[in-house]
């Protein structure tokens, strides 16, 4: 492990922690605008997290150690997963860090703990949330893995670092693959981060909530960790999308100027994508739960198409 790599670990973690709440707030802002509202400030998520850190934690009577450990494990798993997706600077991969399958399974680890915590308090909302979350994540999984296989196929590597380095060096890949990868990754992003039409992050209605249902019993600093980790997960998947499709600005050598430019570019790209996500969410309604498999089938179709194009091109 070189000095550069350790520096990368620090830089990446700081950038993701700093920018993640911004993108979440931006999406909310865009959605508010399309509804004709002013909406909360773009810094609202930062304020919320700081406020939550100051509040006391309330545990439910029946809850066990799972409830106590979940926020910590969840956050740790997401932060380690964050090391797998270079946001601004791509170093040489070390010891399998950046492996795309491991990245996926680290997200699954976080989800596993979150779903158990949803069941822990014995509330029916929590149970409903984790049941739906695990069902959705199970049926989206084949699509996700095929998309990742398509990426591995196009870039001839399993490592996210190498993929980013390749696209940073060679510019974007050819158009049809670009479009199809973009669509598939976008659908995965929507599903994995519980957005409309799969889930509605804004409501606490029994019929619609999935992710919010699972974390309903969380409070205080634990809730702050859960909210922040959800924001980071969104940022990671956004970074995966933008850095593969629009790699310009991504630094491959460690210079201060390069890092600053990369950070500015990353935030700009993130802002654009947040806007797109916000508009997409505003233009959709939440789907009925059992209609979701057909949406997933569409993503599956696009990702299989990429591979077929590659195979027979």
């Amino acid at each position, binding site marked *: 492990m070189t000095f550069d790599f350790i520096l990368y670990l620090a830089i990446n973690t700081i950038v993701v922690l700093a920018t993640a709440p911004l993108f979440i707030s931006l999406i909310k802002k865009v959605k508010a605008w399309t509804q004709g509202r002013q909406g909360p400030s773009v810094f609202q998520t930062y304020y919320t997290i700081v406020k939550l*850190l*100051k509040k*006391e*934690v*309330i*545990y*439910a*009577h*029946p*809850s*066990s*150690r*799972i409830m106590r450990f979940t926020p910590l494990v969840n*956050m*740790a*798993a997401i*932060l380690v997963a964050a090391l797998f997706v270079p946001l601004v600077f791509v170093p040489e991969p*070390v010891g*399998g860090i950046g*492996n795309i*399958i*491991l990245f996926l*399974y*680290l997200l*699954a*680890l976080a*989800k*596993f703990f979150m*779903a*158990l915590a949803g*069941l*822990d*308090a*014995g*509330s*029916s909302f*929590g*149970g409903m949330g*984790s*049941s*739906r979350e*695990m*069902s959705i994540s*199970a*049926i989206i*999984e*084949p699509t996700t*893995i*095929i998309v990742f*296989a398509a990426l*591995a196929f196009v870039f001839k590597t*399993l490592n996210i670092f190498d993929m980013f380095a390749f696209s940073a060096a060679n510019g974007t890949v050819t158009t049809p693959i670009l479009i199809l990868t973009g669509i598939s990754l976008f659908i995965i992003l929507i599903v994995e981060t519980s957005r409309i039409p799969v889930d509605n992050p804004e409501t606490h209605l029994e019929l619609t909530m999935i992710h919010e249902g699972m974390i309903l019993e969380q409070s*205080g*600093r634990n809730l702050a*960790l859960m909210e922040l980790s959800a924001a980071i997960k969104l940022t990671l998947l956004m970074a995966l999308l933008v850095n593969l499709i629009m790699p310009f600005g991504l630094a491959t050598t460690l210079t201060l100027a390069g890092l600053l430019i990369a950070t500015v570019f990353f935030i700009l790209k993130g802002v654009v994508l947040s806007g797109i996500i916000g508009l997409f969410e505003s233009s959709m309604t939440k789907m009925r739960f*059992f209609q979701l498999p057909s949406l997933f089938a569409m993503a*599956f179709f696009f990702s*299989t198409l990429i*591979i077929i194009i590659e*195979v027979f091109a």
Partner: protein
Amino acid sequence: MYTELFLLAVTILTAGFFIPVVLCNRDLRIVRTLALSCTILSSVILGLVSVVILLGGDPIAFTASQPFAEFSLSFVIDRLAAFFLLIIAAVSACVALYATEYYEHLGGGSRRNLLTGCTNLFILAMVLVVASANTISFFFFWELMAASSFILVMYEYDNPETRKAGIFYFIMTQLSTLFVLFGILALAVQTGSFSLAAAGSPATPLIIVAFLSLFIGFSIKGGIIPFHKWLPYAHPASPSPVSALMSGVMLKIAVYGLVRFLMDVFSPDLWWGITILLFGSLSAVLGVIYALKEHDLKGMLAYSSIENIGIIFMGIGLYVIFSVTGFSVYATLSLLGALFHSLNHALFKSLLFLSAGSVVHATHTRDIEHMGGLARRMPWTSALFFTGSVAIAALPPLNGFASEILIYIAIFSSITEVDSLLKVLLLVCLALFALTSALSAACFVKAFGSVFLALPRSAESAGATEVSRAMLAGPGILALACIFLGLCAYQLFLLAGFSVPLPDMFLVGFLLLVMATLIAIFLYLFASRAERTSETWGCGTHFQQASAEYTGHGFSEPLDIIFSSIYRTRIKNERVFFDKKNCIFKEGTAEIRLMKVFEEYLYLPLARFGLRLSTIISRFQNGCLDTYLLYVFVTVILVFLFLGWF
């Protein structure tokens, strides 16, 4: 030196069988403890021997007896056999430790001596199957393994459910033996010897027949769908240590048989690999889908074993495909994945069966809907079951992930190179594999959540207490092994001489720890430390009721509906009304029944066909002497005619 050690271990195991069964069959705890100590001791010796051979020691080979020139009981332990010996040794030691306490809680008096003795006989049979150097001794100990495990399954024979399970198991396991025998005989006819040596290529029809019957024999033993039905019957019926041994180890012996024959005897064709891969994928996906629906805790674990054997078969299928098409790197990778997953599954499945046994012991039920809230009442058992769940759900940094990622990497990297049609096949299998692993995560969230979390759903569950130390120590060692194998997977492969493109899980585990520590320090410094225990948010209900909780059924309902075409649920709704216009309801019945697809469409028709055939044949046996004389007379005439004609 190592040969003597191996013989010593075998002798100790034999003693472990004779002491409680023959020498002293009185109902004494000390006898059983002594016999189980024999198991632990010989497992430790076997473990040592196998580790030495695995790390590059010389293989052991010797002949025990040779009554005829062609027939001999001879043994050889090479690296492959040593690996499977390690699996047997590791699981047996922990199971025996657990059983010292668990067997004492069973009813049955001195019958427990027989149980203890047969456990040792069963382990001995498995050790000798793996060590066999020719097909004759392989077959002999294979049958011994089947017979001794049948006695173990039938332990609670006074229970009708157990009797049914036992008979089912007996028939299936004898079918397996029959197919294995047939395969071995076909091989012997082809090659003229009973040795485990190359049968030559290209494959003649007889070799193909031999392969197919051996494959079916091993699939029945391993629980590959559609030959899987005995698992969900036999596992819940048998005592938990026996389930742990059968699921953890015996299924792996089937895997060993397949790998041994594929590597040493056959020179496979491409379609063999595709067949194994397809059966493996089918078992993996269907196994986990059925596991989701199962509410018997041990039945659920049995279905999950089917899933994992499916994954192992996928690895073996990939190995055959890649080695036939000339990608030896990926072939090694998939074989290592399959073998490593065998070890991992042995560890975490026996861990899960043992801790499930503790739960069943504490709550006196196997139905997960009557459990709940055990995490606070049985903290250690819940921690053990939790470790097993994380491992089996293939989550990093535990061992289940380390072996599944090997198979993922093999598929991901080969997909760019193999030819187009194989690409399509690999993609399909990849998608199914991903689905399997995500569904098994859902399945174990459901299992752990319903058994250990929230409020207890029955009085027994509310009054459950933690089990004693021996019943924690056995699975405890297994849990530590799961964590160790997960974290050090990469280093262990290097030590064994394989450089695999596995991510360094130790680094990942270390990073997880660092991040968790940093977050904890941050929270300690900057966040409020106040905490309070209060009621669960319940939308204004007066008090929280266990009956209002999400149940296991409820949890899997969305997946039930999505996969309803696979489950084939039959919903019957009959109503009788007082009036003609069907307004005033009188009475009615409603029923939701899960169809047992394989049982109704495959097993029962076959059984009915067999029954019909035997009815026809039994007509000849009417018990009347005149008829039999007639048969003799007709036969004699026919013989005369036959001789006259030719």
